[in-house]
Each structure stands twice: as structure tokens, then as C-alpha cells.
């Protein structure tokens, strides 16, 4: 069973069809979602998080079809989601916020305090657990966002630009966390930072203009680049080469 299975998926972002005929099947592991600005990464994330209803095509999450009038409760219980613009309640402490999200995810009440403590520990916010959200720095807020996403041990974890605002040390810790969660869950990480993908992801999904350009193992991305391609690392050169090749085929 695929954790995510999309066939000819179309999702609208406002008036624009931001995801247009996407075929994608993802199993367990850490998948990096790459693509230029406007490629449809965030729209795809929002559809997978059940925030946006697909316009057409088929989408199944954790074995349940989520198009039409599906009952989403069971799927949503097993979801973790960090939106690109992570909104929070400034007067909540980190612990209160993660507790509230755990309650919203219908976790059993007696499991919540322990799960919250574990999630806060895993993102390295133990010392700030009882600080109000409005006193946190950008990187700490992002980590609080990751904590609420993982608090229910999700089967499908969707992280939209999770490494924005994290310093080098935190990014390295975060990659270890991703590998840990990705051992038996499906993790989809959208990012602009190609090096995050090379370091932490098992697979890569490359989007452009709402369609799948390429997917394969993270190591395979590096092999696609030649020395003449734009980029400072083998992975970046592979990224540029694939996009350029795709744009050459598709009439603009």
C-alpha cells in the first residue's frame, strides 16, 4: 500500500491550476520535494494535508481515497503537517500549543502529556517548553512547528520548508530526526535547499509547473549533472540539468 498515491492529480491555488496532472506514489522513507518557485510544491503539500480539496484526478492517502466526500478523520489522525506559513497562538507556551494540537488530532487524553514532552525533546526545545510562543526566535518557532507535526507519530509527515531559520547545527540535528521518523513513516519535505535533500532524503521528487519532472534516489540526482550545469555541488548541477532538460521538451 502506498502512503501517498496520486493519479492525474489537479489542484487549484486560487484561479491557477498549480498542480496539473501529477502522478506520484510514495512509500515509507524521507522524500525531498524540489522545484523552482511556483512549481506547485506548497499547493501539493496543502492537498496532501487535506487542507485543499483536489480539483480532479485521484488522490489516496494511507490507503484511503480523499477525493469527493470522503471521511477524512482517520487519515487526519495519522497526519503531521507543518505549513509554509506556520501560524501559532502567541500567548500559548510551546507545551500548551503542542498539547492543543495533540488534542485536535484526537490523541487519547492520557497519552498527550508524555507524547508532547517527547516531541518537544526531539526538536531540542526542552529548555523552552514553558516559554510563550511570542518570545521564541524564528528557528525555535520552526522547531515548535515540527514538534506539533510529529507529536502524534504520524504515518504521513508533510513539512513545507522546515529548515527556514534553522542554523547549521540545528539543520544537522533536524536531518537526523527526519531519518529517524522516515524509518517507518512517509516523510515529504519541501525545500529550496538542494543540499538538505542530498543529506537527509532517501528519494527526490522534482516538480515544475505542477508536473512531475523526475523522481529517483537522492544519489541519482547528483549523477544527472555535468560539469557545465549551473550549481555549486553535484546535486545542484543535477537539479539544474533535469529542469533544463524538462523545459527543453515542454513547449513554453
Amino acid at each position, binding site marked *: 500500500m502506498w502512503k501517498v498515491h496520486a493519479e492525474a492529480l489537479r489542484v487549484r491555488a486560487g484561479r491557477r491550476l498549480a498542480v496539473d496532472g501529477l502522478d506520484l506514489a510514495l512509500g515509507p522513507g524521507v522524500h525531498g520535494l524540489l522545484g523552482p518557485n511556483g512549481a506547485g510544491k506548497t499547493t501539493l503539500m496543502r492537498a496532501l494535508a487535506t487542507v485543499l480539496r483536489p480539483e480532479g484526478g485521484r488522490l489516496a492517502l494511507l490507503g484511503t481515497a480523499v477525493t469527493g466526500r470522503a471521511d477524512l478523520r482517520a487519515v*487526519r489522525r495519522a497526519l503531521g503537517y507543518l505549513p509554509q506559513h506556520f501560524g501559532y*497562538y502567541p500567548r500559548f507556551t510551546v507545551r500548551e500549543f503542542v498539547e492543543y494540537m495533540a488534542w485536535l488530532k484526537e490523541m487519547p487524553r492520557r497519552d498527550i502529556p508524555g507524547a508532547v514532552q517527547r516531541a518537544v525533546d526531539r526538536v531540542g526545545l526542552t529548555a523552552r517548553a514553558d516559554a510563550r510562543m511570542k518570545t521564541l526566535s524564528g528557528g525555535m518557532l520552526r522547531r515548535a512547528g515540527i514538534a506539533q507535526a510529529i507529536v502524534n507519530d504520524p504515518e504521513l509527515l508533510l513539512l513545507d520548508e522546515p529548515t527556514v531559520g534553522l542554523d547549521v547545527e540545528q539543520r544537522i540535528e533536524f536531518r537526523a530526526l527526519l531519518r529517524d521518523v522516515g524509518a517507518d513513516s512517509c516523510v515529504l519535505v519541501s525545500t529550496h535547499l538542494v543540499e538538505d535533500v542530498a543529506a537527509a532524503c532517501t528519494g527526490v521528487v522534482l516538480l515544475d509547473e505542477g508536473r512531475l519532472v523526475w523522481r529517483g534516489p537522492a544519489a541519482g540526482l547528483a549523477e544527472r549533472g555535468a560539469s557545465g550545469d549551473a550549481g555549486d555541488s553535484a546535486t545542484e548541477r543535477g537539479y539544474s540539468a533535469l529542469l533544463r532538460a524538462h523545459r527543453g521538451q515542454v513547449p513554453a
Partner: protein
Amino acid sequence: MNADDDDIRALVERAAAGIAAGIEEGPGPVRGRRFRPAGLAGRVAPWLAAAGALMLAAVALEQTFTSLPSLVLLLAPVAPLLPVAAAWSRRTDPAWELLASVPRFGLGLLLRRTLAALAAVIPLLALAGWATGHAPALWLLPGLAFTAASLALGGLTGVDRAALGLAAAWAGFVIVPSLATARLPAVLAAGAWPGWAAAVVALAAVAVVRTAFNRETT
């Protein structure tokens, strides 16, 4: 003292060190539950204050200008709409996108927040009604009917837009003509309460059915 004793002592020491390290690194003691809905209260408080100020002004005006139709009765139907809309609005809720991805998002949460807002605003209406001596049915039922109507229409337009539209319609079709003619309309006459009670029941049923079948509860 023999070799076995040394082995056992070494084992005990290793175990003790391991347990101590585990206690050191493990999760701290969990504090008691403190489920302060501080975020919600913080966001809704200004709107609740606005509703309170509105009712206070209505009481003051009604007691000062006795020739005017009852402003408390005219404003009571729409006063709860301010905090209700604020409690369930995409614009005032910073975590809206997160909420839209959780299983509890839907009718239960909508009703929970609406009840919280009503629980805060109804005492204000009660005070205003008591100060001006109006029958409770006439300030309570219209407010509940308008709240239920906002939730029912909310499935189509969003609760906040529905509340705004209903308040504007009430102001345009009832409040302004009443002030112009200096007479309370028939819908706010003493005998009108069974109609309002029926409207509350019917609109609440529509709201429940609509939100139960509409996963994008906005």
C-alpha cells in the same frame, strides 16, 4: 570477597549509572493539565469588549431617550455575531491552516467555539435586558437565531462573512427603519417570541446538517 562479588558489584554500579543517566536525560515530570484556551480568549476578547460596549451604549441611550424604540432589543440580535465570527474566522485565527488539517476540525470544534463565545456574550445581554426590563425571550432568542443563521450560511460563505452580512441586513432592514419611524417592528413585539424560537430550532438544525456534510467548515 571473591570474583563473583566483584562482578555483581560492577553490574550493580553499571545499572545504577545507567538508571541515573536515564533519569537525567529522560522527559521531566509532566505538569498538571493547564488547558487555558489563551489564544482563543486573546483573539476574541476585543470583539467581546466591542459587543459589551455596544450593549452598554444601547442601555444608556434607551434610558436617556425614552421616546426612541428600545435600542437594547434592536441591537441584541446582532451583538453575539461579533465574538462568534471572531471565534471562527480564517482571518483572526493564525493557526487556521493547521486546524484545517486535523480530525477535530469540523462541527464539534465549530460548536465548541461558538458556545464559548455565547457563554461570554449572553451574560452581557442579560445585564442589558435586566437593566432595561425587557422579557428575556426577546433579547435572547433573536441573538441565538442570528448566531445559528451565521453558522448555517457559514458553510457557503464563511462564518465571518455570513455574520457581517446578516448584521448589515438587520441594520438596514430593521434598525434604521425603526429609528426613522420611532417604532419597534412587529418582529420584536412581545408576541413574536414563538417565531424566534422556531427560527432558532430550524436554523440550528440547518447549521448542524450543513457542517456535518461539509468538510471545509469555514
